[in-house]
């Protein structure tokens, strides 16, 4: 069964460093999303992406964050200058369409900022 994959599973970085989290969405899906979950808290929406453009972003998704689909398979989240409060699980999700279609989630990348 097709699934969303994410790499790395765990990333440790120093405060102020740039990190890139990678995702491979399900192959026939056209809409892509990033969510994050701080330990013990709710899953929070960060950004949705379609047709090589951001379609919606939350207030969390400030200028330090960017997303890109560099090729036909990968979808990346870049954090330019990490802060301690960026420590969280980051989940990529994808869906066939952007309506009420099911979003399928990857296993997540645990980001630890020291």
């Amino acid at each position, binding site marked *: 069964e097709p699934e969303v994959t994410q790499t790395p599973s765990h990333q440790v970085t120093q405060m102020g460093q740039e990190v890139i989290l990678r995702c491979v969405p399900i192959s026939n899906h056209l809409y892509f999303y990033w969510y994050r979950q701080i330990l013990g*808290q709710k*899953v929070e929406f960060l950004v*949705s992406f379609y047709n090589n453009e951001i379609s*919606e972003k939350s207030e969390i998704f400030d200028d330090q964050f960017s997303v890109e689909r560099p090729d036909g398979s990968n979808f990346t989240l870049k954090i330019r200058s990490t802060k301690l409060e960026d420590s969280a*699980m980051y989940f990529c999700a994808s869906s066939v369409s952007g*309506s*009420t279609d099911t*979003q399928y989630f990857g296993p*997540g990348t*645990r980001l630890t900022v020291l």
Partner: protein
Amino acid sequence: EDQVTQSPEALRLQEGESSSLNCSYTVSGLRGLFWYRQDPGKGPEFLFTLYSAGEEKEKERLKATLTKKESFLHITAPKPEDSATYLCAVVLMFSGGYNKLIFGAGTRLAVHP
């Protein structure tokens, strides 16, 4: 403000002891509601989508129902492998067809033999 509230926060059951989890929501125009299961350190695993009041979906020991203000996840004769956090999420739509999910905090279910 769009909000999703799940109760209880935690639930401990004996194997075989049926129960229900609640998800109540206040959103402007519900377009859909999802139930996911999340194991520790893992991503949410899709269970059900419900679109309109009165709709029901079933899968093995789980049954999800939807009213105009809340959804229930009924667990019949649970087994220890049903232990997980169950997440409810509502779909918010935006012009252009884009959407995002608003999640509740989840219910941590522990089923003991």
